[in-house]
């Protein structure tokens, strides 16, 4: 029984990491209709910022998240200005190639500046123990931040004027132009916010995992699986989708023979199944 509960908790905590990585990607796709293949690399940069703040400045990793958000927001705005803004109306293939190009560029820059070594943050492992079940404190914090940020973002999008404006642009860009909304400005802000969220995610990933130039690649894959499962661009359903993926991986790992190997392939399998059977995602909310 203990094993069963521990498996559920492990899955839930993992879903928190997946969710925080996915949320920025979902925002860009939902508002701008662009799949940002460099999103994982923004996460990677965030992880490095936290690592260097901790190592060089002896800064509390959670405090460094503020720097992550600011720096990645600025990087996001720059990338938008020099690249993304030029291909907004271009064919999807151009968008894919551009963001993929940025992804390769950032990976190689990280390799040049920080080598391929994997680095972790050597904080004392704090444990939360309830009965026979125990979990790492930092993973609980990451889970909490992940879900809180997603809920706040969802509320901003549905309740505030800013959010409603973004929704309006998302639904019909031309109509938004006609009613006087400065669409390029809101696009730029959205991309900046999504990048800042990736930076925040990176900092949290750096705390509970490690960082290396390729850390964004595998996390990016999970994010795409959640994106597809949730229905492309659907922020609320991303919460459900990340919990489903986290729990499924956890249960397969523990209860299926040779499970850990199978669990890793689950993301690919989900993408395949959802796109084949129900391309609109679990709630059918994908908009074209």
């Amino acid at each position, binding site marked *: 029984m203990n*094993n069963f509960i*521990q*498996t559920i908790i*492990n*899955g839930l*905590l*993992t879903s928190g*990491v*997946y969710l925080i990585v996915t949320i920025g990607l979902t925002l860009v796709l939902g508002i701008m209709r662009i799949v940002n293949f460099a999103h994982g690399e923004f996460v990677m940069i965030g992880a490095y910022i936290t690592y260097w703040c901790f*190592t060089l400045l002896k800064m509390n990793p959670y405090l460094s998240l503020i720097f992550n958000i600011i720096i990645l927001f600025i990087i996001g705005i720059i990338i938008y200005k020099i690249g993304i803004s030029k291909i907004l109306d271009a064919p999807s293939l151009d968008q894919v190639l551009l963001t993929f190009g940025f992804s390769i560029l950032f*990976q*190689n820059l990280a*390799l040049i500046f920080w*080598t*391929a*070594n*994997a*680095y*972790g*943050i*050597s*904080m*004392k*492992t704090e*444990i939360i*123990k309830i009965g026979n079940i*125990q*979990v*790492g404190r930092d*993973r609980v914090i990451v889970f909490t931040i992940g879900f809180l940020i997603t809920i706040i973002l969802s509320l901003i999008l549905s309740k505030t004027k800013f959010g409603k404006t973004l929704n309006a642009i998302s639904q019909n860009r031309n109509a938004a132009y006609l009613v006087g909304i400065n669409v390029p400005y809101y696009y730029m802000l959205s991309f900046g916010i999504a990048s800042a969220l990736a930076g925040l995610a990176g900092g949290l*990933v750096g705390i*509970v*995992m*490690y960082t*290396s*130039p*390729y*850390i964004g*690649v*595998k*996390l990016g894959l*999970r994010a795409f699986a959640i994106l597809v499962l949730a229905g492309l661009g659907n922020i609320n359903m991303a919460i459900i989708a990340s919990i489903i993926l986290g729990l499924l*991986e*956890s*249960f397969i*790992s*523990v209860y299926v023979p*040779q*499970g*850990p*190997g199978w*669990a*890793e*392939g689950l993301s690919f399998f989900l993408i395949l199944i959802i796109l084949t059977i129900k391309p609109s995602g679990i709630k059918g909310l994908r908009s074209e």
Partner: protein
Amino acid sequence: MKLKKIIMLIIILSLILPLSLISCKKEEKPEAKEPIKIGAVIPLSGGAFAQAGQEQRYGLLMAEREINEKGGILGRRLELIIEDDQCKSETGIAAATKLITQDKVVALIGGYSSTITFAQMNAIASYEPIVVWMGASSVKVEHEFGPKKWFFHLHPWDYHRQKTVVDFLESINPKPKTIALTYEDGIYGTTSAEYFRKYAQGKFEIVFDEPHKSGSSDFTSLLTKAKAKNPDIFYSVSYAGDYLIQIKQAKEIGFKPKGFVIVAPLFPGYKDSLGKDGDYVVGVNPWAPTLKIEGLSDWLERFHKWFPEKQEIEYWVPLAYANLMCVADAINRAGSLDKNKIIEALEKTDLMTPFGRLTFKPSDEGGLHQAFTDLVMVQWQNLEPVVVFPKNLAGGNYIYPIP
């Protein structure tokens, strides 16, 4: 008249001959100064292997500089051409083929991944180049290319590593009874697991035996499953980044086996990344900076002078250094660039390197030229690596069970 003609001929010849001699000299000069090219293919970008590839690069560069400082090879400058396989087989094949067919290198060195090596050697086998390979530990490579006259191999094979681990586990007092084994599901992990099972059979009970994907963000489920089996030893065959998470997450879920065993525990960043959480982990390694190898302390001093920015070094650095040094040594002894003479010289190699004494001997499973076979067990104690096995090389006792 005749005399006049002879005088004219002498004058013309005296003008032409020195010119021709000069021109001959001019043609010979660049030929004589033309560098001797050796090609290396290592992973420098594109994936997790790049970490080891960048270590290898330091060793190769140091060897190249020292060889050229001492007058090069056969009086000619050594030109080392390093190609990046980008952790991909197809890029590795293209790089190796380019070095052989376009750059016309005398020998091919380098290597890391067994999978990429297998593909590369298949692709270039028809050229029968001189290959002196530091990477690839899978016996699949040994079975296929070990018997080739042109293939020389430096790194211990899988079975050397697994035999060392089993011998070490047997030496522990009190002897552990149960083992949880997990391995990355590539060619390196699966072959290592096969040999471990083979050697451990009848000696230990393997209560958990599961693969995992390298690069995973979460190992808590795997560790929870292993914890439920309550093993004496947890043995993981994987890569640096995976170990960082596994060690941390084992602590988080309260999984505390009596012994935590990994492969190659001296990777850069281990100490800084794990701190005290990394203490008491033990791992199998073919080298340690504290080993009593003739000339090692001098070599380490020279290395830190060449590369002051590089403080921690993994075993790939001295291995790569030995890789290039042994090829240069063989060419010098061969006295020419003739392929057969170099192969003959390589077979007779007896060279002291910072990795140990380098000679080529037949290996256990069919290889003709195998250099290193010995490994040690290194345990992190108070954030310092201590050799704990074999006893004759040990710098301290193995702390067991983990306090």
